[in-house]
């Protein structure tokens, strides 16, 4: 590859050589671009008489040295972050088939919604009388999510899926305690997402893992052996993380309810079943949703999300508060108020949840409508199955039967033959113009490639993705050993030394030596 220059020492000034458009130099940090005395800020002219800092801050508390921050012109600020943006892949640039992440297209209209002054400019502590629009919006979203999941009521507070899980487990605990029953264990399948066990621990429960059977579903026999009066509940995602529908879900529900446990639904994979089957109808008592997956709110490079939790009738009194509620049924001019459920577990967010994310999700649901939501599930499942079928001959398909919204392939055979790993395939795929699938998850599949195309990728894109994966498989065969391990070549940086990052930890610019 081109003898790309190595990291420039010190600040190279405003060069765009770090933009992939021009070269592959490292982009200096904003601290290196900083120069004492530069500034970009400006404030409103207030007309308030100036006071010396000494009069404003008690001496013992007054900062003596100003806090060092980057000092750059607005021009350099813009250049730096614009160049960084060119070093970043995104849904807007291309397909992002990350399994379990539902990286569908995020409609721009939702950006416009989140920017409305009447939504974005509202202080969260303003009383209900002055924020009726927001409360009405939240109530409509809650009702909508309940219809979609088949539940009775929901809290919109959790800021992401994991927060939803913890909320759910605390609801589980509160419910059991209210019934005077002490329970200690929560069951999760070995295919579960890492947040599930982590949340169980925070909920004060002990994790009991049940294996998957050879069809990739919960092993019913194994489940039976762990079910007893100590079980507070079970956490499942259905379709599960293998993209497979737990066909025995009714039996599972019955068995768990039998011993007095509750069923928790991890909604990360809800996209597969919108309008087709509802967690509530499957027997789940608690459901969290990832609006940043199923309902297209953008991931923002890792967040924000929103993880509302819907529950069945019997758990409603335990929901976090305050909850927005319509207080009079007169439809002409409904009135909304904040209410705290009688036996509320308390509060899961500083305010009302990630409100603007919630508004985006409602806008997305309104645009698609009930009819459109089912079409989403159908198309997402169609795309995933097309990929499964198309690549079945090329990669291992550990559980080769109809999948839902995603399919888990394995590089096992190719690895045995050529030493090419799932990671190599992922890195190679980057240079084909696609983001990599999720790799090495779920943990129960060796060399897993977890592909979730989502419904917004067109058949042409699926074809191109399939061709790329086929090309890579044949390269694994045709090219010399280690060839694939060299990829990617053309990206802003090539493979990074993760071990070094952990060994010589440099978590801030100041930790450099």
């Amino acid at each position, binding site marked *: 590859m081109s003898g790309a220059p190595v990291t420039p020492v010190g600040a190279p000034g405003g060069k765009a050589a770090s933009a992939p458009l021009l070269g592959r130099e490292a982009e200096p940090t904003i601290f290196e671009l900083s120069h004492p005395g530069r500034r970009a800020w400006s404030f409103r002219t207030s007309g308030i008489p100036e006071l010396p800092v000494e009069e*404003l801050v008690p001496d013992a508390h007054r900062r003596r040295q100003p806090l060092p921050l980057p000092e750059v012109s607005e021009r350099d600020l813009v250049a730096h972050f614009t160049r960084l943006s060119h070093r970043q892949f995104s849904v807007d640039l291309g397909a992002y088939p990350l399994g379990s992440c539902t990286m569908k297209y995020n409609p721009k209209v939702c950006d416009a919604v989140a920017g409305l002054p009447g939504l974005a400019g509202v202080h969260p502590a303003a009383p209900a009388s002055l924020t009726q629009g927001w409360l009405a919006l939240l109530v409509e979203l809650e009702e909508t999510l309940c219809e979609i999941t088949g539940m009775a009521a929901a809290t919109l507070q959790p800021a992401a899926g*994991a927060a939803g899980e913890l909320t759910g487990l605390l609801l589980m605990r509160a419910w059991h305690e209210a019934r005077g029953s002490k329970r200690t264990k929560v069951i999760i399948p070995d295919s579960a997402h890492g947040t599930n066990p982590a949340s169980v621990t925070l909920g004060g429960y002990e994790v009991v893992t049940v294996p998957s059977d050879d069809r990739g579903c919960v092993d019913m026999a194994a489940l039976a052996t762990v079910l007893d009066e100590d079980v507070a509940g079970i956490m499942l995602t259905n379709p599960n993380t293998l993209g497979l529908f737990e066909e025995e879900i009714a039996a599972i529900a019955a068995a768990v309810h039998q011993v007095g446990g509750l069923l928790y639904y991890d909604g990360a994979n809800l996209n597969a079943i919108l309008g087709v089957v509802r967690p509530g109808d499957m027997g789940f008592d608690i459901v969290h949703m990832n609006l940043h997956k199923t309902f297209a709110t953008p991931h923002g490079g*890792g967040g924000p999300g929103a993880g509302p939790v819907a529950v069945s009738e019997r758990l409603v009194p335990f929901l976090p508060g305050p909850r927005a509620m319509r207080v009079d049924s007169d439809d002409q001019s409904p009135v909304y108020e904040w209410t705290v459920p009688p036996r509320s577990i308390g509060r899961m967010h500083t305010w009302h949840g990630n409100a603007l994310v919630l508004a985006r999700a409602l806008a997305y649901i309104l645009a698609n409508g009930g009819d459109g939501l089912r079409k989403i599930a159908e198309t997402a499942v169609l795309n995933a199955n097309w990929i499964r079928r198309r690549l079945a001959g090329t990669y291992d398909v550990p559980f080769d039967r109809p999948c839902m919204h995603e399919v888990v392939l394995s590089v096992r055979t190719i690895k045995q033959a050529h030493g090419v790993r799932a990671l190599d395939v992922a890195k190679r795929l980057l240079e084909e113009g696609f983001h990599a699938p999720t790799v090495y998850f779920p943990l129960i599949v060796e060399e897993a490639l977890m592909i979730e195309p989502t419904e917004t990728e067109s058949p042409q894109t699926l074809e191109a993705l399939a061709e790329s994966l086929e090309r890579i498989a044949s390269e694994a065969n045709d090219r010399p050993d280690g060839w694939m391990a060299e990829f990617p070549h053309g990206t802003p940086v090539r493979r990074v030394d993760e071990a070094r990052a952990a060994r010589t930890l440099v978590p801030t610019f100041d930790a450099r030596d």
Partner: protein
Amino acid sequence: MGTYIPHTDDEVESMLAFLGLSSLEELFAVVPEALKLQRGLELADGVGEPDVMARMEAFADQNRARSDRLICFAGGGAYDHEIPPVTRSLAGRSEFVTSYTPYQPEVAQGVLQAVFEYQTMVARLAGLPVANASLYDGGSAAVEAVNLGVAASGRATVWLSAGIHPHWRQMLATCAAGTGHRLATIPLVDGVTAWPDEGVHLDDPPGVLVVGYPNYLGCIEDLAEARAICDRTGALLVVGADPVAAGLLRSAGSWGADVVVGEGQVFGTGLGFGGPYLGLFACASAHVRRLPGRLVGETLDVEGRRAYVTTLRAREQDIRREKATSNVCTNQTLMAVTAAIQLGWLGTSGLVELARRCAQATRYTRDAVLSLDGVEAFAGAPVLREFAIRLPIPAAVAVERMADAGFLAGIPLTGDFDDGEHALLVSVTERRTRDEIDSYVTALAKAVAS
């Protein structure tokens, strides 16, 4: 109507044919009939984007408290600060907005480097060496800090200053039901925490102290005293610090805080009815392996070029599962990137200027308001960017009257503090002009008189 789905009917046909299916329904053959929804969702059919906008604008229109209609004097952890067009446009770049967690560093250097820069700025604000890549909000950061503190000290008793944001305290209590932490709330006297004097409680010594700087009432706490208790008891000191005030105040780290948390909304994120916001989290090096959430570190690529990657992953839920330091996965990265941009816009002089203007406007307003008949200070200690007053009428009533005069007057302390019914928490940012403040004071005089 699903205009976001590209597929035409013909394409669906041929894809089904490729799968040997004759209908979309068959894709769900694996789903037991009995469970299937036998009807369509009872939701309106999809509509076009212009209709969607109209619907959402109708909601927006019903919010009287929008900052373009009521001049904002409310704070309490959510502040009406300047957000310059440059921050909006950079933070709105779709590469930042529509990317996922940086699992493939080769194509995620943009977000990774921006977060690395953010971590550096947050660490400096806290006066501590390490900061994570963000948490949900100030309250969740406080919860994580207490979890870390209990794990590190090995003691589950937590002394919680009553000066901590009431909602944070509620969250701590809610989560304690799961973790089993024992929370003891330490009351305020004259606006600052009245820590139990030496000796007390030493039968059940605290594992963690949590205190605000400044606290919810805007009062400046004595961190030296809190630190001394920690030194005596071996507890960790968790400080909830206002990052704007940090422009004028000594860093919490310099007072010996082990963990500093805060609400990062003040750096480029709008009021947004409370979210998405930004949980700031920084700690001492000793605790880095207990750090909740993601951490970006610097390293090199195979060509020796500087590169960034998420590191110390072994702490995280996807690897450590039930033994993880936290369950957090998705965080608030976009707000962290936004904060990095906004702090770059402010720079060294801008942060000081911002803090100074807030303090100055607060002082100016407080002096004027306290000169009104029947209005008095609610707390004695010196305040910085926020203050509480006692009114002759219920605070909630005052807020309603002030709304009619065009102001969001502040936050009633009703329920959160004893005899808070008549107490109003007022915050004045750099966006408030003298004219606005003067008319606020005039309006308040009227409101409390009538």
